[in-house]
């Protein structure tokens, strides 16, 4: 197995991009990623794209061929594969790209993610997203995505004393970070009071506990580490690419307040990298809902189980804290174009590790972790990368 590095990265502005189609977003991010490296089109010998639901959101499937075509690579006949694991589709594309290069089957691979979500109404989007849950045994009875995370939150609060304010503080922190990120969907800060006054979606979760509907795309270019310096002055080395799965339905989990897929993916990733949670300088985690970040930092081993609620309040997870979480603004503030999120997390990590993250730069970072979840924990991906 060969060591793999990121030699280029790009990400579109996230938001309600009414003027742009899925194709426009793909082209925009592809150009950005390729301009970030000296690789030529002829050298690309594989494409992976994470996309959750082109079929529901823009009535377009066959996204693999589409992105190769849009990227101007159709005449090179490069193999192009769409992968799907709901909101973890982007992380999955990254891992598939890493496996392709590590195995020697491919040399230069683009791992991308894209989702165009605002071409349908809110109700249709909510139903498309609910397809990440168990359609027959959860959604059939009226479950929505926020409702499943609300039930995780309710039990976490009951069992560990996590408070409504602690949930709100995750959103407040991530909006603060997002306000310093030029690609972020939300550029404004919010207060705890504003979160607590926002309308209920699924009790105890309110609108400002939830990540938004977003259009966006992101891409990274991968190559063997041994030749990475040929294409980039600042390649980022992938130390681990791990994936795990769990039951589709939340009710079948061993423990409702733990995402075992995250626990197992993290365990595998730390073992691949030969590192422990204490060695990680910062992380992008899957905060589709505020409770998601609290559970994630527990499951990844940054804090003890049940202690996640206190982290934001104590400043542990802030920029300058012990383990800064979601410097990009996370899914909450930066936005969550579901198929693109896993790649955007890698993009943020590339910027941080290169020291190019501007006002939200964390000082002295060597090793970063990204954590991408599909559904409410049916799939989890954990990547660890370093300078």
């Amino acid at each position, binding site marked *: 197995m060969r060591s793999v590095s990121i030699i280029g990265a790009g990400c579109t502005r996230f938001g309600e991009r009414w003027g742009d189609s899925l194709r426009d977003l793909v082209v925009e991010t592809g150009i950005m990623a390729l301009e970030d490296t000296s690789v030529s089109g002829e050298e690309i010998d594989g494409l992976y794209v994470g996309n959750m639901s082109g079929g529901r959101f823009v009535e377009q499937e066959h996204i693999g061929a589409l992105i190769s075509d849009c990227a101007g690579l159709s005449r090179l006949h490069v193999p192009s594969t769409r992968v799907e694991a709901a909101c973890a589709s982007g992380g999955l594309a990254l891992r598939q790209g890493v496996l392709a290069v590590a195995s020697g089957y491919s040399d230069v691979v683009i791992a991308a993610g894209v989702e165009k979500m605002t071409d349908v109404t809110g*109700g*249709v989007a*909510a*139903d498309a997203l*609910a397809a990440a849950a*168990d359609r*027959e*045994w*959860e*959604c*059939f*009875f*009226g*479950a*929505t995505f*926020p*409702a499943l995370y*609300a*039930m*995780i939150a*309710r*039990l976490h609060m*009951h069992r560990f004393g996590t408070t409504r304010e602690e949930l709100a503080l995750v959103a407040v922190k991530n909006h603060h970070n997002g306000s310093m990120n030029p690609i972020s969907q939300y550029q404004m800060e919010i207060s705890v009071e504003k979160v607590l006054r926002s*309308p*209920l*979606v*699924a*009790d*105890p*979760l309110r609108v400002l506990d939830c990540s938004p509907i977003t259009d966006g795309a992101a891409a990274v270019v991968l190559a063997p580490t041994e030749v990475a310096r040929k294409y980039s002055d600042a390649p980022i080395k992938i130390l681990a690419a791990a994936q795990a799965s769990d039951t589709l*339905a*939340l*009710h*079948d989990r061993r423990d*409702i307040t733990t995402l075992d897929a995250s626990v197992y993916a993290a365990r595998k990733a730390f073992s691949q990298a030969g590192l422990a949670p204490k060695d990680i300088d910062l992380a992008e985690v899957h905060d589709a809902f505020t409770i998601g970040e609290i559970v994630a930092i527990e499951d990844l081993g940054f804090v003890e189980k049940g202690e996640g609620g206190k982290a934001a309040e104590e400043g542990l997870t802030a920029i300058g804290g012990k383990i800064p979480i979601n410097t990009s603004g996370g899914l909450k503030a930066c936005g969550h174009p579901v198929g693109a999120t896993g790649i955007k997390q890698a993009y943020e990590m590339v910027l941080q590790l290169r020291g190019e993250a501007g006002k939200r730069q964390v000082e002295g970072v060597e090793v970063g972790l990204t954590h991408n979840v599909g559904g409410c924990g049916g799939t989890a991906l954990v990547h660890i990368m370093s300078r």
Partner: protein
Amino acid sequence: MSTVPRFWRHIPQRYNLVGTHCEKCDEYYYPPRTICPNCRRNAKMEDYKFSGMGTVLTYTTIYNATDDFKRQTPYNLAIIELLEGPRLTGQLICSPDEIKIGMKVKPVFRILGKEGDRGIIYYGTKFVPVEGSV
């Protein structure tokens, strides 16, 4: 719009809470599983009809639903642990203030939803509090 078989094929499980029981490891499953995750190929599965009596493990009240459920908002959704051990997701018919984690519930047969004004009406199990348990 869905076809009739989509709803019809799950009538036994949704109308009567029929699941499975693995004789080998004595674990109960609802919804039914063909393969026991404990024993896999060595499993010995049989059908099992649950009484539907259980307790609330966690719950929420939904204010913002998908288009199919919009007319029902707000409604309660809970994860219910059946007496035999398996858990399921279902609606809980009562005031949100009445719900407590650990509360005992029993099943009732109800309309779950309909696909528009002319579409299929589908039925299944919802839950109500067992009186005196609150």
